[in-house]
């Protein structure tokens, strides 16, 4: 993957978007990932290619252990591919990338910090200006409905609210790309629906490119413009489905739309086929 290293310094926060990168935010090109364990070599991802346009919302679904999370970690630069290329805004990803926001399945909050200070951790690490960060944090707190809980500690919050805090933290620095790894997997069904509605709104309001890994087929079809369906290990993208719904979506209404039902049915067929092939 190191054949062409047109390397620009990483700390170029204020760079102007060139034509190429305004079109493709995330690009995976024939990516393969192998893990070496003591006893065997495991191929987690095989020949994965995926392009995500700037401002697009792409969901990734697939059976457990198919390497969905690995894929996100590749994009974030937390992992390196064994072969193939991973690009973020047209740049090769060779180290952990600071120009993304990451949300894990567990909120991963610092329990000794209040809601506000957990969100501001992002600013402290990046050495953002304190005033700007506080204003931005206040905006996000309002946007995600955390008003009144700014000074609460994580253990005083419900799972859904903890996840909102994690989302605020990931959005604080206005990342061009948001990576979400089953962010609502641990929530109850009702909270999950509410979070889906909110995430749809936040995505429309911020214009962030979102890559969402999920186990829920309806979550994927409700939120995403396109859904990448992956096969079981070694994982690869079997099909990318265009959901074909407008960005602004009412929850109940969307569920009954024919486009929605067509998309979910197709995903189900593909996933069923993937598990039957095992």
């Amino acid at each position, binding site marked *: 993957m190191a054949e062409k290293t047109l390397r620009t310094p990483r700390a170029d926060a204020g760079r102007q978007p060139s034509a190429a990168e305004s079109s493709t935010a995330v690009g995976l090109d024939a990516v393969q990932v192998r893990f070496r364990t003591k006893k065997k070599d495991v191929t987690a991802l095989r020949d994965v290619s995926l392009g995500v346009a700037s401002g697009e919302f792409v969901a990734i679904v697939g059976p457990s252990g198919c390497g969905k999370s690995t894929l996100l970690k590749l994009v974030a630069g*937390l992992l390196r591919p064994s072969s193939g290329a991973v690009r973020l805004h047209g740049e090769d990803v060779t180290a952990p990338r600071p120009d993304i926001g990451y949300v894990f399945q*567990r909120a991963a909050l610092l329990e000794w910090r209040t809601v506000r200070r957990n969100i501001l951790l992002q600013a402290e690490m990046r050495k953002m200006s304190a005033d700007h960060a506080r204003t931005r944090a206040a905006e996000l707190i309002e946007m995600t*409905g955390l008003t009144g809980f700014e000074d609460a500690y994580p253990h005083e919050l419900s799972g859904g609210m903890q996840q909102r805090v994690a989302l605020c933290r990931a959005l604080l620095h206005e990342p061009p790309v948001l990576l979400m790894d089953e962010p609502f997997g641990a929530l109850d069904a009702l909270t999950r629906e509410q979070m889906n*509605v909110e995430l749809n709104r936040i995505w429309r309001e911020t214009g962030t490119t979102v890559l969402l890994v999920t186990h829920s087929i309806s979550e994927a079809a409700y939120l995403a413009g396109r859904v990448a369906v992956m096969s079981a290990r070694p994982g690869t993208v079997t099909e990318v489905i265009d959901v074909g719904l407008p960005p602004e979506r009412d929850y109940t209404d969307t569920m009954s739309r024919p486009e929605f039902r067509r998309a979910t049915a197709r995903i189900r067929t593909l996933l069923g086929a993937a598990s039957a092939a095992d």
Partner: protein
Amino acid sequence: MSQSAITRTPAPPAGVSERAQRGAAERLGEAVEHSWRPFALLLVCLVAWWSVSAAGLVEPYLVPSPGATLDVMATKSGYLWHHSWVTTYETLLGFVIAVVVGVLAAVVMVYSSTVEKTLYPILLFAQVIPKIAIAPLFVVWLGFGIAPKILIAVLIAFFPVVISMVTGLKSVDPEMIQLSQTMGASALQTFVKIRFPASFPHLFSGLKVAVTLAVTGAVVGEFVGANEGLGYVILQANGNLDTPMLFAGLLVMSLIGVVLFVIVEITEKLLLPWHASRRGDAVSTAY
């Protein structure tokens, strides 16, 4: 419109703010609720002790009466104060050194597996060797002054600090570290803002063990060779068959240990309110 329903969520559930405000008074009540039992037991022991000596079941030179013990504590209070202070000073100095060295050693060991592999066996060796057996050697090396006592206190208190700190530093959620990397944080930032504070709950459980052990260490040092401190007081009293003084020394010594332990525990509660309140349920059943 389902959207507005969600944005309205935050009218804080009454329980949250209410508990935060009632806190102080409630906590005092809880403290009394939790602590009267040990005091009651203490009282029972005192009464038992008193009745045994008052009934003349045991010779006074074997077990003095509580009255005689308290009398010694009152009449010789200056003498006891002086020696208690010496022991406390040695204990605290030993404890502080053990904490500083222990925390530093733990940090180095966690960040370098080579250092860990090199140091660990030596640490273990230093831990298993009976301190009381090497104490005379320290007196030979360092004399009768304060140095050998502090050294023994350090050696005895050091191990729980290292072990708890290593566990604490290693128990950080790996996703938290990855998150920190996506924030562009340096290793130092990750350590200062995430790893170090995350290890505090483990560290404090080690500190509580260490502080009581430090008292033991100081007294062991005084037993071997000293002309000051509670260990010296007890040896002197023993030699003179002055059991009231011996008991007085023992009481004061235990009191020092308890007070230091409580100070560490209060510090923990002040520094880690999130931790203490999170395991609040466990505390109320455990006490």
